[in-house]
């Protein structure tokens, strides 16, 4: 594994998906590309692992999905953030920030 790629902490994939989708409706592959862009390709996951996470978020009601047509004229499923998904993203982001700063402080002490 190249040194700049980090293992994914549990739960962080969900947060990254919510963040990626909050910027606009996307299909599965689009979400992966978007996560790659916003994280500077710092994440190393098997691409298929994205989907169980997507379904989990969809059944929890944070994501809404509908079938549409993608750029290359193929049928694809597009995901967007629901109202409760937006709220979830806010709460999770705040929680993550608290956690990250606490960890940073602890490691510097």
């Amino acid at each position, binding site marked *: 594994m190249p040194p700049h790629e980090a293992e994914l902490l549990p739960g962080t994939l969900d947060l990254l998906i919510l963040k990626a989708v909050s910027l606009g409706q996307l299909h*599965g592959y689009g979400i992966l590309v978007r996560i790659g862009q916003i994280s500077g390709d710092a994440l190393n996951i*098997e*691409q298929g692992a994205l*989907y169980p*996470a997507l*379904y*989990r978020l969809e059944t929890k009601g944070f994501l809404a999905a509908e079938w549409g047509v993608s750029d290359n004229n193929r049928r694809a499923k597009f995901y967007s953030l629901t109202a*409760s998904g937006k709220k979830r993203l806010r709460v999770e982001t705040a929680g993550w920030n608290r956690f990250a700063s606490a960890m940073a402080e602890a490691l510097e002490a």
Partner: protein
Amino acid sequence: MFNHNKQRREMADEFAHHIEMRAEELMRSGISPAEAQRRARAEFGSVANYQDQGRQARGQQLLDELWADLRYAVRTYKSSPGFAATAIGVLAIAIGANTALFSFFNEFMLKPLPILGAEKNFELRSMYLVRGSQERHTRRGWTRPEAAIIRAGTAGRFDDIYEWAENEEPMSAPVALTARVVYVSDNFLQVLGAPILMGRVADDATPTAVLGYESWQNTFYGDPAILGKRIRIRDREFVVTGVTGESFRGLNPWPSDLYIPLRFLQGADSEKLIRIGGHAPSAPPLDHLKQPLDALGKLEYLEIAAQPKTTHISMSFQTRMLAAPVFGAFFLVLIIACANLANLRLARSASRSREIAIRLSLGAPRWRVIRQLLTESVLLSVAAAALDLAFATWAIPAIHEFLFAIMSKVKMFVPPPALDWRVFGYTALLSLATGVMFGLAPALQSTRPDAVKVQRRRGTLVIVQTAASAVLLLLAAVFVADARRMSRADPGFTVDHVIALTDQTHPALETAIRNDPRFATVLRMTRIPLFGVEQLPAKIGDRAVALR
């Protein structure tokens, strides 16, 4: 969960789209199409594995939500225990009545007979005309000459064929009582798989008897030295050669006292009909028996058939026609209870409209809120059903004991209906259906964006409830009126001056009556006219004096 296949297809489509997009991107960076495809697949990982995880992500989610809904429902009812208790009580009565009915239905019409080879058991029946009349009769019994013809004509057509005849006979020694005797062909007990507790099966030639377990226990107090003892039936002695195991009841729901070889069956051919059963993989054709049976003279046979006898009461057209209205009436009781509770919930939904409106505005899908409300109503009906089953395990033996204690004179013992997986499954399904039935309308109603039509919906429910109650009342009235009319029906002869003595009567008593001048007429018949109209307990010497 119902669109399992659709879900699987959609996942496959979605994954395929992903891999193709990735491959196209790789191709744009100058990789050959074949290599791009390969690499895209490798990067994606195992499709099957992720499909599995995807399904789990959904399934697990449903379970989690169900659990959350259940906890929420319990909390809601804790805050209004009065409503919960009333609802559970009403539902327990309605579901309990239906379950009780079903358990009888199960016992006699669904459960296989407790004999060996119940699934391939048949009984021979006939449809015939009495010569010179156009009236059709059906019958399950055969006279001795008929049985002989059938025995010869069915050789090799059944795996096993057996004969029996049941009769209540006067036993005079060692104790005097009426015994339920089954006269059996020599293979009867073996073919039906009767367990033999001790001794051996009676052999055909000598007057021997095998005791039923209950008879051995109750009449002979479980005498361990019973084998070889003598029993007197009518005026013949039988030697006890064996005792059947406790579980064996033959083809009846109740146990029999004695099994005696068929050749000791007394009485004229036409009176003592022999029944014939057999085991076969499928019903063998028996039309070839018509001609030799017709040749016997009196009857003209239209049909001779082996009918499946796998349960106590077979599911014929007639039994279904009889059972349907009974089930219908019990079901109406359930409908009334449901309409009642739906109405109650609609009235309560006003107090919960705020909570529901908040959940909906927070982005909960309507279906999700409906599911939560349905969980609440199903929780009530399942609690009611659980209460019923708990009550039944205690009440069935108690009621049964009480019934047979007050009916001890009938000396008939029918084992209590058992709660088995069929009853359990029926109750579970019924309670789920009930929960949905009374919960769906209020759930749909209270999650509507405009909750204005509540009044109208409640009106409809009241109408349903009133209509169902009216039908039930009418049924009850008809039933009572019929029973009254039956009790006053004119049997066509003077009932007051008739004494009926059944076959159990000791032969010496019959002779005494024939010689008694106080009796105007003495008749012998196989069946009392209008059997069951009214039977009075009578003793020679008191009421009989007032005869004539």
